[in-house]
């Protein structure tokens, strides 16, 4: 049996964290943690070494782009899906340039997040 | 337009005078432009587009422009074309500052120079325009800012 994909969900909104968890249930995943700010996210990342991270940009303590950079330093092959209310193209470009593999603006529908995730895991893991 | 914008345009213009002529200009109390024309003998206009739209222009008389040219170039009497060049240059410099500060969200047109006080400079009706009276030495000129 294929190993479950380890996912870390990072967003300062509880509702969004729950929604992402719910919408991704159909995939063979294990949610190894949820974090509401950048600092906690990094600690969890180090502890759990997830395969995929869903990451918000505007968060307290540490903004998402800084967190993204730090995560990639720790584990360069992690796949990060930036999920953010900052839907301007410049932020998305920056995130992808830094190494994120996917960009999903909020508000997102269940189908949209599932499609994004599907494409992400469809890539060589 | 907010107060930061208007401050910025005023400061850019003041800086220009001070840097180019080593003499400060002073800004009078700004006021909201009404139907009365605000045009002197030569006017340099720049258009702004992009995230916000509008126009800025600076209007002055030949006497002041000649004195400025004298300081910059040591020329006593300026030809018409040189005067137009100068007013365009002033507008260009202000626009350069605008580009630098507001830069990437804005597009700045090349300056257009209008000669004569025949009619008022056409500005968008739906945006409030602010007039800033300027005094350099004893010369009066105006900076007019119209920005969304």
């Amino acid at each position, binding site marked *: 049996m294929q190993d479950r994909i380890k996912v870390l969900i990072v967003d300062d909104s509880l509702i969004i964290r729950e929604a992402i968890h719910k919408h991704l249930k159909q995939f063979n995943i294990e949610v190894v943690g949820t974090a509401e700010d950048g600092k906690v996210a990094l600690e969890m990342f180090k502890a759990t070494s997830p395969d995929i991270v869903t990451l918000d940009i505007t968060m307290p303590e540490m903004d998402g782009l800084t967190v993204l950079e730090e995560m990639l330093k720790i584990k360069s092959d992690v796949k990060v899906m930036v999920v953010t209310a900052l839907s301007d193209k410049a932020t998305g470009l920056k995130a*992808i340039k830094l190494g994120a593999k996917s960009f999903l603006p909020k508000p997102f529908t269940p189908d949209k997040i599932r499609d994004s995730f599907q494409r992400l895991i469809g890539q060589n893991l | 337009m907010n107060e930061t914008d208007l401050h910025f345009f*005023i400061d850019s213009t003041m800086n220009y005078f001070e840097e180019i002529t080593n003499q400060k200009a002073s800004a009078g109390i700004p006021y909201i432009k009404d139907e009365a024309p605000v045009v002197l003998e030569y006017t340099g206009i720049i258009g702004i587009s992009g995230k916000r739209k509008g126009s800025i222009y600076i209007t002055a008389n030949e006497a002041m422009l000649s004195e400025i040219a004298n300081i910059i170039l040591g020329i006593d009497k300026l030809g018409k074309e040189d005067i137009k060049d100068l007013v365009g240059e002033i507008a260009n410099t202000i626009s350069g500052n605008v580009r630098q500060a507001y830069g990437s969200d804005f597009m700045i*047109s090349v300056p257009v120079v209008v000669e004569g006080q025949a009619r008022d400079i056409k500005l968008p009706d739906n945006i409030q325009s602010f007039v800033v009276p300027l005094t350099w030495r004893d010369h009066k000129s105006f900076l007019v800012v119209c920005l969304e």
Partner: protein
Amino acid sequence: MSEKIQTGENQEEKHTNPASSDHPSGDDKSIILQTVEEGVFFLNSDFEIEPEYSSAFVDIVDQEVNPGQKFLDLLSHRVPENIINNLIEYLNLLFREDLDNETLDEINPLSKVEFHYENRWGLWTSSKFLSFRFRRLMNQAKIERLVCTVKDITQTESLTKKIEEIEETTNKQMDWLVNILRIAPPLLKEFIDVSETELDQIDTELKNFTSSNDCRPLLNKVIKSLHQLMNNASLLNLSIFSEKLLNFENEVQNLRDRENLNGSDFVPAVIQLGEVRQMLKDIKALMQRFKHYSNTLRPTRRYEGGLLIRTIENLVKNLSRQLDKKINFDAAHFDHAIIPYSHQQIFREFLIILVRFSIFYGIETPDERKSNNKDPVGLLQIETFSDRRICGFKLRHDGRLVRIERLLQKTIDSVETQSLRDHPLGSSQLGSEVVRLLFMPSLATPTLTEAEYIKEIFGEMEMVKKKLKMHRGRIKITFTSENFCEYTISLPIS
């Protein structure tokens, strides 16, 4: 081949020869590019435009396109710099195989962009909204080049923008309507007219001010005007307007507290003035739309009279609350109908000023009244009167005329009224002297903590005097020093 296509003779051949229909030939491609309505072009890995592109592409960008030209040059001075900077990043990302099309679509900086068209002097003449899309063409599993399309989406964008603007305007207007619909149109119209006049006046004063003068008197004048407008707004409960005026006043107050002002320092105040004037203009435009409605349903005189009484009642209530006083207001003998229409505005102004003056300066607090063996609840009455020649109103209260002992002390101390010391006034002379002094703010202003407010009230009394003179009216004040004061204001009817 093109002949076959044109005549359609060899359609069957085309269909039975699948290999030839998989990839269009050069000629087919050319025809497609000539016919298709979308702008289509190709970019190589150096982001240069390749020789094949659709004629629609040239039409849409409305400029000469040269094969080999850099795509970024085409956009230079047509779209903002930040978009061009983002585009450079984006085009590089398009050549990365690890990124999928959907993700790249999300971050496409040209998905919707305002594209400006210039004339030969570099002046913008117009703009359109364009949408560029990019797809990758693979060759042996490597990204070789990009196929790009551009569409004119101006109509859709304009419509969307218009809808957004309409929504925003509608919401703003709904907020205003909630505030203004409950106000009688004549009152609102008067408020707007007075406000416009005052604000125009302020603008003119600023325009004509020469910086060699001390600007404090100008600023004081502006604040005085604003106070009047704020009072009017609060009488009508126009909170949207009061708030805007308050912001304006705060900026002017900031200026007044500073030294060595220059023109630039006035910027925040002027911006606020602009916003207030714009709001007035918008409300006026809104009222125009309701003009017919208001003309058809113009309130009766009795209704208008009722509104005036309610206005005064509100004023009494609010001031009493602010000053911790208890006041009974009696308007049983006030008949609005006997006041000619031409005098109504001025009577209303006088009433408001005198009520404020009486409550602030005349009627004491409950404790003060108790210690003077008076009913803790004060009484304020208004009534109208008229005959063939004149009409007017009386306002009476059972407080003191004014803090009369202080006023008198100041009077006695002043050089102008030196004679008082030598020749004590009889009570009627005292009465007229007090009336005279009431309209001399410079003498009457005491050194109290509420000096500003008092200055303003005495300023208003000065205005009453001026306006009465203008309308050939009269004022009479009857009082005792302790518990009675009656103002009688009359104007000739003609």
